C-alpha cells in the first residue's frame, strides 16, 4: 500500500516537531507527515534537564555566545552557522515562550537565565530542571493545533527511497500491525536524534540508535565529524542517568576519593567556594571527562561494581536550594540510586551523552541528496565542532529544525516532483527484504543482544574518552566481523503485532553502520581535539585537521573518509583557555 504527503519528517522529537510546525506555517495547506517510532512526547528530547542557551541578559551579547560556542568546540565549528544559531536562538526560545513553555522566571515576570558549563555569561533558559520535558510537551501540544500535520505514531522508518538523485519517500513499518508501507513525499527531513546506544554506558534512551544517520549514510549522504562523541562528566553509575550540569552550575563540587577538588590539577582554574563561569566544575565537558580518566590512572577514584566513580558534592547547597533549583536531581538520586544529595555524596562517572557529528548539512539543513534535510542531533551543521557546550543542543534543534522545515517547504513548492516508477519497485524490494530476510529468516545461531553487547564493549574500549590508532584499527576489524554475524541472527519473534525484536534487529544494523563510521573517522584523525583524544597524537594539528571529516559509504559497504574545510568568519583558531 502506498500513501503520500508533501513532506515526511522522520522523528517526533524537538527537532522533528519544530520542523513540522515550521513547514506547516511556511506554505499554507502543505501536507506534512511526522513519522516516529515512539509517540512524539516519548522522544528523547524529553530527558534534557539543564536548559537552553540564548543570549538575552543585558550584559550578554551574541558575539560572546558565538565565541564561547566556537572555542568550546575547539574551533571546529562552522562560524557562519554559529552566527545564525546565536542570532536565532533567543527568538526561537521566545517563540516557545509564546507557545506556553513554562520557563522559570525572575520575580518581575521576565525570563530567568542560569550559568552553564563553558559559557562565560548567564544565558541558559530553563524550566526548573525539566527543560527538555517542558519544551517537548509544549511543542507536541502546540503541534496538535495544525491540521496539516499528520502523525504516524509508532512507525519505524527502515529505508529512504532515493532515485533520480532525489529522495522520494520512505518505507516504514507500523509497529502495532506489522504492516510495511511505502510513504512517498517530495521532501524528507531526518530528525531522528543521536546514536548514544552504540556505547554500553550512556545517558541516552533506548531509542537513540542512530537510525537516521544510517538511513542517510546508506542513501548516499555523508556523515560529518562522527569521531566526536561527548562524554558527560556526571552520570549515575549502572543506570547512566544524567545528573545535569546545572548541579555544578548551582555550586556542586567534584571530589576524588580523598575529598579533593581534583579539577584544579588539570588546568581548569583554582577552587572557589562559589562557582566561577568557565572555571573548575564549570569547565567544558570534554576536559572534565578527561580529568576523570587521569584520576583513574592515578588511583584516586572510588571503585564500585559498576566501575570507578568520583563524588559530586551538593550537600553545602542546602535542601532549600536543591528543592527549588534542582528538584529533579534529588528525585532521580532518591528514586534510582537511593541517595539523598542533601545529606550524601552522589557517585558519578563520565557517560556517553551526545553525538557532535551527524548527517552533513548546510545551514538550511539540506544534505547533498536532493530533497533530503536533517536537523537536531542527527545532523551536523556544524555548530558543535569537536565538543558541544551544554544547553546549546535544545536551541540548535529549534533553530535548525525551523530552518530545515522552511527550506523543505520551499523545496516542495518550487521543485516538488511526483515519485518515479523505480522508487516504487525499490520499496517493493525493501518490503520483501524485511519480510523474507529478517522476519522469516530461519536457522540463525546468533542472538541480537549478544552482537549488540560485543559492539558496545568494542566501542567503549577503543573509541572512548581516549583512543589510539591500534585500538581503533582493532575495533574496525571487530565491527566488520559483527557485520558478518548479523545476518546469521534469527528472531525469536515471528509475530506481526508489535514485533520489538524486529525493530531491535533493524536498529542494531543501523548502529553497526554508524559505529563503523565513528571508528573510521576517529582512526583517520591523527590529532587530539575536543572530545577526540588520541594517546598517540596528543596535540591539536590545525595544519592537517582544521577540517570536518566526511564518512562516505562505498558501494561495497566500506567507509571512506574525506575532509571538508571549516568555515572561519571572524574568530581565528586560538588556544582553549578555562579557569583564567
Amino acid at each position, binding site marked *: 500500500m502506498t500513501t503520500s504527503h508533501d513532506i515526511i519528517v522522520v522523528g517526533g522529537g524537538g527537532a522533528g516537531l519544530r520542523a513540522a510546525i515550521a513547514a506547516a506555517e511556511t506554505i499554507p495547506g502543505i501536507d506534512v507527515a511526522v513519522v516516529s517510532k515512539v509517540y512524539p512526547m516519548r522522544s528523547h528530547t524529553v530527558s534534557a534537564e539543564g536548559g537552553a542557551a540564548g543570549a538575552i541578559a543585558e550584559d550578554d551579547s551574541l558575539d560572546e555566545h558565538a565565541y564561547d560556542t566556537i572555542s568550546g568546540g575547539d574551533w571546529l565549528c562552522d562560524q557562519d552557522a554559529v552566527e545564525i544559531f546565536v542570532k536565532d536562538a533567543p527568538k526561537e526560545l521566545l517563540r516557545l515562550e*509564546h507557545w506556553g513553555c513554562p520557563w522559570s522566571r*525572575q520575580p518581575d515576570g521576565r525570563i530567568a537565565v542560569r550559568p552553564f558549563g563553558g559559557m562565560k555569561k548567564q544565558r541558559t533558559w530553563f524550566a526548573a530542571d*525539566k527543560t527538555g520535558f517542558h519544551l517537548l*510537551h509544549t511543542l507536541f501540544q502546540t503541534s496538535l493545533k495544525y491540521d496539516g500535520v499528520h502523525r504516524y*505514531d509508532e512507525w519505524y522508518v527502515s529505508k529512504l527511497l532515493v532515485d533520480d538523485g532525489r529522495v522520494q519517500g520512505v518505507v516504514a513499518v507500523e509497529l502495532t500491525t506489522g504492516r510495511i508501507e511505502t510513504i512517498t513525499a517530495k521532501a524528507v527531513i531526518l530528525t531522528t536524534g543521536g546514536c548514544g546506544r552504540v556505547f554500553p554506558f550512556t545517558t541516552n534512551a533506548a531509542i537513540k540508535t542512530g537510525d537516521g544517520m544510517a538511513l542517510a549514510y546508506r542513501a548516499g549522504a555523508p556523515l560529518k565529524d562522527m569521531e566526536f562523541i561527548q562524554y558527560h562528566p556526571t552520570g549515575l553509575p549502572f543506570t547512566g542517568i544524567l545528573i545535569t550540569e546545572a548541579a555544578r552550575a548551582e555550586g556542586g563540587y567534584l571530589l576524588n576519593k580523598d575529598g579533593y577538588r581534583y579539577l584544579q590539577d588539570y588546568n581548569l582554574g583554582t577552587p572557589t567556594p562559589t562557582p566561577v563561569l568557565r572555571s573548575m566544575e564549570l569547565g567544558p565537558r570534554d576536559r572534565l571527562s578527561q580529568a576523570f580518566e587521569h584520576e583513574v590512572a592515578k588511583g584516586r577514584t572510588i571503585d564500585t561494581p559498576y566501575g570507578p566513580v568520583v563524588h559530586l558534592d551538593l550537600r553545602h547547597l542546602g535542601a532549600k536550594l536543591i528543592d527549588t533549583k534542582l528538584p529533579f536531581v534529588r528525585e532521580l538520586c532518591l528514586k*534510582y540510586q537511593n541517595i539523598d544529595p542533601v545529606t550524601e555524596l552522589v557517585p558519578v562517572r563520565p557517560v556517553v551523552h551526545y553525538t557532535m557529528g551527524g548527517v552533513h548539512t548546510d545551514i538550511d539543513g539540506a544534505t547533498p541528496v536532493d530533497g533530503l534535510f536533517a536537523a537536531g542531533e542527527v545532523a551536523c551543521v556544524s555548530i558543535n565542532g569537536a565538543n558541544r557546550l551544554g544547553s546549546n543542543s535544545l536551541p540548535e534543534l529549534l533553530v535548525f529544525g525551523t530552518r530545515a522545515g522552511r527550506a523543505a517547504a520551499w523545496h516542495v513548492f518550487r521543485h516538488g516532483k511526483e515519485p518515479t516508477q523505480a522508487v516504487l519497485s525499490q520499496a517493493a524490494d525493501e518490503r520483501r527484504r524485511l519480510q523474507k530476510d529478517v522476519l522469516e529468516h530461519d536457522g540463525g545461531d546468533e542472538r541480537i543482544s549478544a552482537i549488540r553487547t560485543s559492539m558496545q564493549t568494542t566501542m567503549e574500549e577503543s573509541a572512548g574518552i581516549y583512543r589510539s590508532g591500534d585500538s581503533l584499527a582493532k575495533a574496525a576489524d571487530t565491527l566488520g566481523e559483527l557485520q558478518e554475524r548479523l545476518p546469521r541472527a534469527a528472531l525469536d519473534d515471528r509475530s506481526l503485532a508489535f514485533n520489538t525484536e524486529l525493530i531491535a534487529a533493524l536498529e542494531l544494523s543501523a548502529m553497526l553502520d554508524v559505529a563503523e563510521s565513528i571508528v573510521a573517522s576517529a582512526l583517520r584523525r591523527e590529532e587530539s581535539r575536543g572530545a577526540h583524544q588520541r594517546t598517540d597524537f596528543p596535540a591539536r594539528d590545525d595544519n592537517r585537521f582544521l577540517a570536518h571529516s566526511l564518512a562516505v559509504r562505498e558501494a561495497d559497504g566500506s567507509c571512506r573518509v574525506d575532509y571538508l574545510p571549516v568555515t572561519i568568519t571572524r574568530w581565528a583558531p586560538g588556544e582553549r583557555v578555562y579557569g583564567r
Partner: protein
Amino acid sequence: MADTIAMEVARYQPGEDGAPTMARYDVPLRKDWVVLDGLNYIKDEIDGTVTFRWSCRMGICGSCGMTVNGEPKLTCATFLTDYAPGPVRVEPLANFPVIRDLVVDIDDFLDKLSEVKPWIVRDEAPLSAGEYLQTPEQLEEYRQYSMCINCMLCYSACPVYGLDPEFVGPAAIALAQRYNLDSRDEGAAERLDVLIHPEGLWACTFVGDCTRVCPKHVDPAGAIQRYKLTAALDTLKHYVLPRGGR
C-alpha cells in the same frame, strides 16, 4: 536476599490468544534492578518475544507504565526488591485495549487530548514585543498540572474510565486545566465548551485513585474538582445573567 525472583508476565498474542495468559520467568534479583530491568533481562536472555514499551529509563518519557501486582506503576521506577521474595506479577495497564503482551492502545487518550485544546489560545504577539510576563507566583498556579508525562497510570486506575470509555479522563482534563490556569492563555471558555458535557467533567465521581497513582504528583482529581467548581459557577452566572456577566 535470594538471588533470583520469579516474574509472572502477561502474554497476549492477537489472533491466537482469546485472552492473556501468564508466563513465569526467573530473573536475577539485584538491589538496583527495577521491574523494567527484569523484563529486559527476560527479553535479552530468555525469550525475545516478550513485548513491552520503554525508552528513557528515568521516569520521564512515560512509556513504561504497566500493572505491577495489581497497581499501575512506572516499571523503570519500581524496584524488584520491593516485591521480594516474589513472584512479581506484571500485566498491561488496565482499562485499555491490549495490542500485545504488555503493550496497550492509548490512541483514545491522544484524541481526547487534542479535543481539549492543550495549547495557548490567544492572538500571538510579535516576537519583538518580547516575552509575555509571568511572575513565579503565576507560574506556580499551573506548574503542577504541567508535569504530566502522559504515562496513563491515572486512566488505568480510574474505574470510571474503565466503565465509560467516553469519559475524557484525568490527564486530559488536568492538561486542559494547565492551560486554563496559565496567565498567558485566553482559551478557558473554548475548553469549557468541550468539557462541560456529561462525559467531560461530570462523569468523574472523585474516586481519587488517579491522584494516588500519579508518579509526577499532578493531582488530576484536584484539577477536575476545581474545574467542576469553575464550570458550575460559570453556568450559574450564565443562567442568572443571561446576557451580561460574561
